[in-house]
């Protein structure tokens, strides 16, 4: 892995984190709109996985805690901010918000609230590529909770039968809203679902961005070679509530403390500093610059008016 790549990984993780922190501030100020879903603790998964793709030919179907993946695929801070706040000029013209948006120019297809619903769609996207002899890989995500949705099963089996180039990350962040893993499923590793479909599956530490990247690169390579889909379960911890309205008092404090030591941004910064790839000064500067960018973007976005009401009556059909 080049030093360049390593710095990039860090840079995107910091972007994700600062975006998140900004949304939290906006939420506290009563200026955020809709649910604010933090990916604190999940940055390594979003960033590491998306970095494994080729953004000129592959395609991203992100979920609600994947702002890092958006950034890797070229989404700008302004774009994300406008969508989150549903302002005029935002990609969805106010019809929808949060992380649901799609930007076909960037090969990003957003999600819908219904968990798991976009996995069958990701299948169809790469099936079309396959029919045309293209070699597009789709990367998508589901939570430890969402993995129990029936459509996930249908989609994985379908992808297995048709050997589709799909990489599914199961983001196991220990909780689905207030529900712990133990009440969501009864197997030690969700990646074992792969066995029942005859596809590749593995469980990895989701706080280690380089491990995520390498594991996903291997999965993308398999997909590209026509060997079909993979399930990669990433173990992380959701370090905040389900969304910011949730005080997550149902999560044991010790569990959070334990995982805090494995914070993906901090550990990776420390690693790169130890390896002499970057100085602690530079890390601080990177954070500060990113924060400045966020603040500037927030200022610009909050000045934007709401989309015009007439947008509500447009393009139900095309």
């Amino acid at each position, binding site marked *: 892995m080049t030093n360049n790549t390593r710095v990039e990984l860090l840079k995107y993780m910091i972007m994700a984190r600062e975006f998140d922190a900004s949304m939290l501030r906006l939420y506290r100020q009563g200026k955020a*709109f*809709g649910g604010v879903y933090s990916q604190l603790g999940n940055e390594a998964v979003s960033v590491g996985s998306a970095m494994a793709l080729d953004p000129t030919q592959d395609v991203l179907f992100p979920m609600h805690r994947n702002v890092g993946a958006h950034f890797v695929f070229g989404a700008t801070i302004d774009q994300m901010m406008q969508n989150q706040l*549903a*302002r005029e000029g935002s990609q*969805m*013209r*106010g*019809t*929808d*918000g*949060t992380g*649901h948006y799609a930007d076909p120019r960037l090969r990003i297809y957003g999600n*819908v*609230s*219904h*968990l798991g619903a976009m996995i069958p769609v990701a299948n169809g996207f790469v099936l079309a590529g396959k029919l045309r002899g293209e070699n597009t890989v789709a990367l998508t995500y589901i939570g430890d*909770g*969402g993995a*129990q*949705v*029936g*459509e996930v099963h249908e989609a994985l089996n379908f992808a297995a039968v048709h050997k589709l180039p799909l990489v599914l990350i199961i983001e196991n962040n220990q909780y*689905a*809203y*207030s*529900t712990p893993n133990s*009440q*969501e*499923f009864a197997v030690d590793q969700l990646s074992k679902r792969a066995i029942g479909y005859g596809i590749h599956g593995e469980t990895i530490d989701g706080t280690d961005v380089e491990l995520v990247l390498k594991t996903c690169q291997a999965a993308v390579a398999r997909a590209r070679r026509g060997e079909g889909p993979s399930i990669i379960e990433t173990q992380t911890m959701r370090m905040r509530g389900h969304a910011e309205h949730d005080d997550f008092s*149902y999560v044991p404090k010790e569990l959070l403390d334990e995982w805090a030591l494995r914070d993906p941004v901090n550990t990776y910064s420390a690693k790169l500093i130890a390896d002499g790839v970057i100085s602690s000064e530079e890390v601080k500067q990177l954070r500060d610059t990113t924060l400045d960018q966020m603040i500037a973007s927030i200022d610009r976005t909050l000045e934007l008016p*709401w*989309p*015009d*009401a*007439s*947008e*509500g*009556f447009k393009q*139900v059909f095309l």
Partner: protein
Amino acid sequence: MTTYLDAIADAIRIEMRKDQSVFMIGEDIGVYGGAFKLTKGFLAEFGPQRIIDAPISEAAIMGAGIGAALNGMRPIVEMQFMDFITNGFNQLVTVAATTAYRWGIPVPMVVRGPSGGGVGANPFHSRNSEAWFAHATGLKVVCPATAADAKGLMTASIRDQNPVVFFEHKGLYRKIKDEVPEGEYVVPLGQAKVVREGTDVSVITYGSAVHMALEAATMLEADGASVEVVDIRTLVPLDEETILQSVRKTGRAVVAHEAVLTAGFAGEIASRIADSAFTFLDAPVKRVAAYDSPTPFAPTLEKAVLPNAEKIAEALRSVLAF
């Protein structure tokens, strides 16, 4: 004065205390007390056997309700948002709705949850889908507008022998407060209610639109018009008689709901009026409903596409001017 949300919780609590066969199943209803905190305290009172947190599997949850109902229980199934009922849709319309007809075995189950828009959720947390279930045959469909009705209709739904789809409006949960009878309280399914008497024109409506209609009625007072508002309360069974009585009296009708217009339940009501009150009608029957689109996210757009008191008032004026 009790909120709409507390009234529903109250009805469920009372039935659960009385009847061991009543239990709840859903997502995050236990420790968390539900996404809207409707089941706050339930886990402590009733224990994890009767307040069951389930995996994110709406079909499995729905099926668990159906099976338990077949086996003598009275499950209350929560959809965290009614929008997610599309994931359990097959269970509901294929299995629950047809069982009595085919097997003669009751399926006493309530499927309930927050529906509706106007609160800046998004297209996937705002749908009003009651018409789908009214068209499924074999499901009762309830849409309360007030706290008291929410309580009384919930009690009736839990006691009913049939699957009931109970649409709570999330915008009313904490906004609406009214006098709610204490203790056991039943509002029978299938009885509409004249919530405001009037002589010049009737608004036939339900759910959140009842409040819009009442506001519109007040607006029309200024025009010197006397508006009657009929809250049908349950779509299935439908109290056609109360609707027709009102329209026969006033000779004019507007039908309103928050759901989108096309193939919405307003069509059902308006056609019944056009058929059975034809000779009493002095004006066309107008419908007020949401624009035919998903419910958008931004407040400007959402406000524009959803119905409101002004839009109902406008329809009333046009019908009165006819």
